[in-house]
């Protein structure tokens, strides 16, 4: 259960204001709610409607304007806010997506979100005083500084990995620039792409070409609202989420706890377990998120490539995963990438032309920034765009069924 849909049709201005009022009633008068949105017009409009609703219940809003989901989750925790929300475009649906967060920064899904919606139809009662709105426009510097000091900056700046990124939408560009300045690595930022739609084929092509031309260590692609990441490396191309997880975990010692939401490759999970990581696999996102906030594993990841680093924040945040990849790479160098390529070689993969793959993706499932994945029987199929061949690679675990 998520608050997603077409603006005007599924999510009207009136409904948005009601959602805001429900948030305000839950947190109570004078308490703080963090608000954010992406750069698109509809998101601006709906954010203002939700904010008005929050204020109408007597609660205060700290408004971060253009933000990432990670920033909102981080800010709730850092500033002790009771709740928060983020309005963004959902390229998978060509609609909008309202994420609602509760203290200390976890996203409400399923039954917890339903509880919020129970308030929507109630009577609106005038508060003792209408809430206030604080404008905090410099969130990106603050968040970037916090994220840069979350990893070993001295290690990264001494190794200076070279990275090609494509943060095509604000505030991602600002965040990537700030992080590069803070951690002092070599970064090429490319941009100028069309209205986002998944998979982000044009952007993946550009990242790959520039990475190749500059012989950069890695290419990075982040979803427009900053929740999902994929990484491109030599030989393997763009990676599956669990392969990115493999990179991140190299910065930690074996024994750390990891939460993973299915469907993900069994081959890689078994590989991680064999290397001593304590991996818990979930089939239900609500349970996955609940366990993440209660047990606080070192890292959590879902099958779309959205990452949570609970000790930093409890929301999906691709940027936190990105800096951890940088740290792992700075420590292990190209050996890190070879390990990932070696695991990829244990799986079955075949090439599919782009048109066929896109058709399969749209028929079978919601696309992700990097492709799509679906299961038939017990076999998981992951289709990842590969710019080298301008087509997709279909990756499956090596099972009798897949062969």
């Amino acid at each position, binding site marked *: 259960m998520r608050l997603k849909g077409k603006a005007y049709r599924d999510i009207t201005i009136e409904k948005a204001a009601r959602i805001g009022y429900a948030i305000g009633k839950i947190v109570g008068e004078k308490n703080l709610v963090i608000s954010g949105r992406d750069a698109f017009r509809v998101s601006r409009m709906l954010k203002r409607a939700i904010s008005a609703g929050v204020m109408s219940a007597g609660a205060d809003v700290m408004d971060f304007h253009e933000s990432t989901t990670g920033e909102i989750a981080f800010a709730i925790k*850092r*500033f*002790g806010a009771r709740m928060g929300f983020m309005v963004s475009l959902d390229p998978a649906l060509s609609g909008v997506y309202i994420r609602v967060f509760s203290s200390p920064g976890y996203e409400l899904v399923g039954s917890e979100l339903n509880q919020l919606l129970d308030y929507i139809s109630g009577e609106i009662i005038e508060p003792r005083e209408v809430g206030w709105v604080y404008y905090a426009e*410099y969130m990106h*510097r603050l968040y970037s500084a*916090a994220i840069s000091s979350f990893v070993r900056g001295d*290690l990264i700046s001494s190794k200076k990995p070279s990275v090609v990124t494509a943060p095509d939408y604000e505030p991602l560009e600002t965040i990537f620039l700030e992080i590069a300045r803070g951690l002092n690595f070599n970064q090429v930022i490319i941009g100028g792409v069309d209205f986002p739609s998944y998979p982000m084929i044009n952007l993946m092509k550009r990242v790959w070409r520039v990475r190749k031309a500059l012989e950069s260590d890695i290419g990075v692609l982040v979803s427009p609202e900053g929740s999902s990441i994929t990484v491109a490396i030599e030989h393997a191309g763009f990676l599956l989420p669990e392969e990115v997880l493999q990179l991140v975990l190299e910065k930690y*010692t074996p*024994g750390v706890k990891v939460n993973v939401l299915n469907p993900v490759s069994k081959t890689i999970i078994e590989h991680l377990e064999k290397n001593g990581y304590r991996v818990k696999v979930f089939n239900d996102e609500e349970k996955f998120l609940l366990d993440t906030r209660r047990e606080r594993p*070192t890292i959590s990841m879902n099958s779309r490539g959205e990452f949570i680093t609970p000790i930093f924040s409890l929301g999906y945040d691709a940027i936190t995963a990105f800096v951890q990849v940088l740290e792992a790479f700075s420590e292990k160098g190209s050996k890190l990438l070879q390990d990932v390529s070696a695991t990829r070689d244990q799986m079955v993969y075949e090439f599919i032309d782009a048109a066929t793959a896109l058709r399969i993706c749209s028929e079978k499932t919601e696309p992700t920034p990097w492709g799509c994945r679906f299961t038939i029987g017990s076999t998981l199929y992951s289709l990842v765009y590969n710019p080298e061949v301008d087509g997709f690679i279909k990756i499956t675990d090596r099972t009798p069924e897949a062969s």
Partner: protein
Amino acid sequence: MPTAVVLAGGVGSRLAPLTRVIPKPLVPFAGSSLIDYIVESLKSSGFSEVVVTARYLGEQIVKHFRGVNGVRALLIDSKDTADAVRLVSGLIKGDFLVSMGDVVSNIPFNTFYKYHLDHGGIASIVLKEVDNPLPYGLVYVDSNSNITLFSEKPASLEIYLVSLAFHSVKSPVFFSNLVNAGIYAFKEELLSILVDNPGLMDFGRHVFPYLLESGYSIKGWIAPHNTYWNDIGRVEVYVQALWDLLDDKIPGWRPRGKLVAKGLYVSEDAEINATLYPPVYIGSGVVVGEGSIVGPYAVLEGDVVVETGSRVSYSIIWHNSRIRRNAYIHGSLLMNNTEINEGVKVLSSIIGSGCFIESDVLNKTVQPCTLVSPYEVEG
């Protein structure tokens, strides 16, 4: 008696090129190295067992403490500060103290440790008031000395925003110019938390936020106002700390050598036929030739030779270096085994170890020519 762990594994990259030949805790500090002061202070405060964890150029640290009573220096493959403590947790019994091995401070370890025992938090942290907290790990405390928030190297606006948010949401009382001084005391229970959560790699970034979020009490002990504390992060800070030592601004710390006049510390086996303008430190085996002028603000570490007619001021010269006749060294740091040619001027520069400087150098950093430690005995 309690155990103290001294963390000496960091790379100290911001202190390069000094740390290319020597780990930061072993940086020479007027006859000793930085870590010696910390270890001595711990031992005199009643910490009978001191465990030193080394990593980067760690063999030098292990060698440095070989045979020193009550000190176990271990070379371990740790990824960060908390990871280092986790790896030596088997050596720790009961509550314990952790200190960074690269801070210059006269914080009274015993007073702080007693505070920890008396106040019952799972962790206590030494906090230091500073004028500008932005380069450090900022800590917020309430009026009962409970730490409410950690913020590693915050952006300036964060302090404003946190103030705003805290005013409406949390406790209105907090101090915003207190920084984490890198000295902690823990209950033994912390060791099992570290072992159970190997993802907690660093104290400031991971362990303390984790403890707070898990509902543990962390106490902040604010160091007395006149306590000296300096995080030797950059070369300029290192130089300033040395000048503070010579100026007797670090109570409890003093250069080796004999105090022969105010601000003049000279080792007994040094041969001085020159004029010394305090404050100056002259190390063991140093020879200063006739007609030379040394000081003010000069540190000549062991076996340095300054030949006739030379002048050294506002400069630090590490071991086994030689300044030929009529040379002029000002505002500079010469690492070990350097040689400055006759009549050459070195101004506002850093000269790497083992380099021979044939002509004048102004405002330059010369990388080490040989990667030899200042404590290596030639031959």
